[in-house]
């Protein structure tokens, strides 16, 4: 058993750290405040092939693997969790289903531009009345005149409006229940496809979250992913992979909380000593470090299983559950280490705490992860 990263992955990590330090970290606080999308960093990521990390070179990707991609999400999120989720939603949710379920023609048409970073991707499953209960889709797709006509509303869509290519789920046959859901690739600019306003969020504020509105939006049949009725399976398998991405985002946030806490504990003096000499602070830092290492092992192992083409659904759920709860718990502790200063926007830990919360909610709440894990264990 070898826990060390390969030289290749070490180089990836160093590259992502340098990129994050120079292109992401310097503007993170500012973009959090303004809610502005990190276009500059995303365009540079595109030009360096980061938006196609796990996809083969002949499909326009960088030819790396899930682990390399996960290292990118981790390191970028360590600097700015919003930038991290832009990458994660694009790769795991927008591009990956086309890679996994698309025909050769669909891969050439839709995945190529996404993997090369010429276009940005998104994934639209959630509706006002279909959150955790994703199967109760109300958006409909009706075949008419050789095209599917989409009607309905999706909410809380990451990369909404900024993305060009959307994986959209809709009911094609309500009588079939789960088996009546289908998946479509919908391009921005298609008549009848519009966006709601930007959501004003607690955290990951520089990421884009919008409603998608479909009013008699006509989609060519060639844009259907898989067969009619494959939608729910496509959504669930896509989320299995996406969870590793969100787990990596949580891991990056948690690591940043530790980085900040260690630095502050050495710097801040009270009672004429650095606060890091007090056992109360030391124990918080010890727990942070331990939970983060445990989370990292879970996250990397889930990525490794996926790369080995072994089953990873339960492990991805475990990684996401543990990493997100670690991020939430320890960003709160990081503020505790910082005392009153940590409550102020001048310090990064305040943003980390706000950013951490979403990782317990999207791509399946912690409750959903526990359902997935227990269903697998009690099978």
């Amino acid at each position, binding site marked *: 058993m070898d826990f060390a990263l390969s030289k290749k992955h070490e*180089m990836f990590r160093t590259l992502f750290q340098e990129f994050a330090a120079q292109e992401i970290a310097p503007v993170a606080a500012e973009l959090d405040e303004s809610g502005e999308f990190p276009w500059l960093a995303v365009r540079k990521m595109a030009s*360096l092939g980061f938006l196609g990390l796990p996809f083969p070179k002949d499909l326009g990707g960088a030819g*790396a693997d899930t682990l390399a991609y996960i290292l990118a999400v981790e390191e970028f999120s360590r600097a700015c969790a919003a930038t991290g989720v832009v990458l994660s939603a694009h790769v795991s949710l927008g591009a990956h289903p086309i890679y996994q379920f698309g025909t050769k023609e669909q891969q050439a048409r839709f995945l190529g531009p996404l993997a090369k970073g010429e276009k940005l991707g998104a994934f639209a499953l959630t509706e006002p009345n279909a959150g955790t209960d994703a199967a109760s889709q109300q958006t409909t797709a009706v075949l008419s005149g050789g095209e599917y006509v989409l009607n309905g509303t999706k909410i809380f869509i990451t990369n909404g409006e900024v993305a060009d290519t959307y994986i959209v789920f809709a009911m094609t046959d309500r009588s079939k229940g789960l088996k009546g859901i289908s998946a479509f690739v919908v391009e921005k600019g298609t008549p009848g496809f519009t966006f709601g306003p930007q959501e004003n969020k607690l955290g990951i504020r520089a990421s884009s979250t919008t409603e998608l509105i479909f009013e008699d939006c006509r989609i060519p049949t060639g844009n259907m992913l898989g067969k009619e009725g494959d939608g729910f399976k496509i959504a669930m398998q896509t989320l299995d992979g996406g969870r590793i991405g969100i787990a990596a985002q949580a891991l990056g946030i948690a690591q940043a909380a530790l980085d900040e806490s260690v630095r502050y504990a050495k710097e801040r003096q009270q009672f004429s000593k650095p606060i890091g000499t007090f056992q109360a602070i030391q124990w918080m830092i010890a727990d942070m470090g331990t939970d983060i290492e445990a989370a990292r092992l879970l996250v990397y192992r889930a990525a490794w299983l996926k790369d080995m083409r072994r089953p990873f659904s339960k492990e991805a759920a475990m990684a996401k559950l543990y990493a997100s709860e670690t991020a939430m718990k320890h960003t709160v502790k990081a503020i505790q280490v910082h005392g009153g200063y940590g409550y102020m926007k001048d310090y990064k830990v305040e943003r980390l705490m706000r950013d951490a919360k979403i990782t317990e909610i999207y791509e399946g709440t912690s409750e959903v992860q526990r359902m997935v894990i227990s269903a697998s264990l009690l099978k």
Partner: protein
Amino acid sequence: MKIVVCIKQVPNTTEVKFDQKTGTLIREGLPTIINPEDKNALEEALAIAGAVGGQVTVLTMGPAQADYALRETLAMGAHEAILLSDRAFAGADTWATSYALAKAVEKLGEFSLIFCGRQAIDGDTAQVGPELAEHLDIPHITYVRRIVALDEKTVVVERALEDGYEIVESTLPALLTTLKELNVPRYPSAGGVITAFDEKKVMVWTAEIVGADPAKIGLKGSPTQVKRTFTPPVKGTGKMLTGTHKEMVQQLIQELRTKHVL
């Protein structure tokens, strides 16, 4: 245009430690990087190759671990990488190092430009570049901060001086040593990292392969004998003088007198 870039893998710290007994650097356990100014050298070579077409070959003399530094240059876009590695090279000073590099360059054949960094952050001598040019009997220009013009036959550069710069023209082939100001090194691309590890090879050349004279390499070929190394004592804090120029000069003279310098 054929361009050779010499890089050195160095410890990632400016505070290298010495083994007091042997007087050599303690390299174990230090994370390594490509010497920063060598990245500027590589960037310039890649930019030229990108603009006028050409082939960039990266060369380093070092232990097996230097493979990693070469992979990084391949990830940035270098076309080929050569690791000069042989026990016989061990203990080389700058003269033996530059001799070995020269033999490798000769084996590579025709070239137009060689780029070196100004200076390595560990050895710090800034000698290898100029010495390499002397071994090859070609002109060299140090401290290049801008390339003004370049064609098949000549190169014109701005060469930094302490208080300005001069414009120097040279025929090709020539060797240039580069400063940080020259450019901003590119990031490796993700696809480049894959190319570097999965698609390309680092060639390993021994002393025999490059036809180096055994008497001129390694410790044996090194005229420099390190007698002793030491860390200079940390300088005391400076004292700022204030007042008019005249007052400050008077204070200075007073100070120098009390210290018996005057």
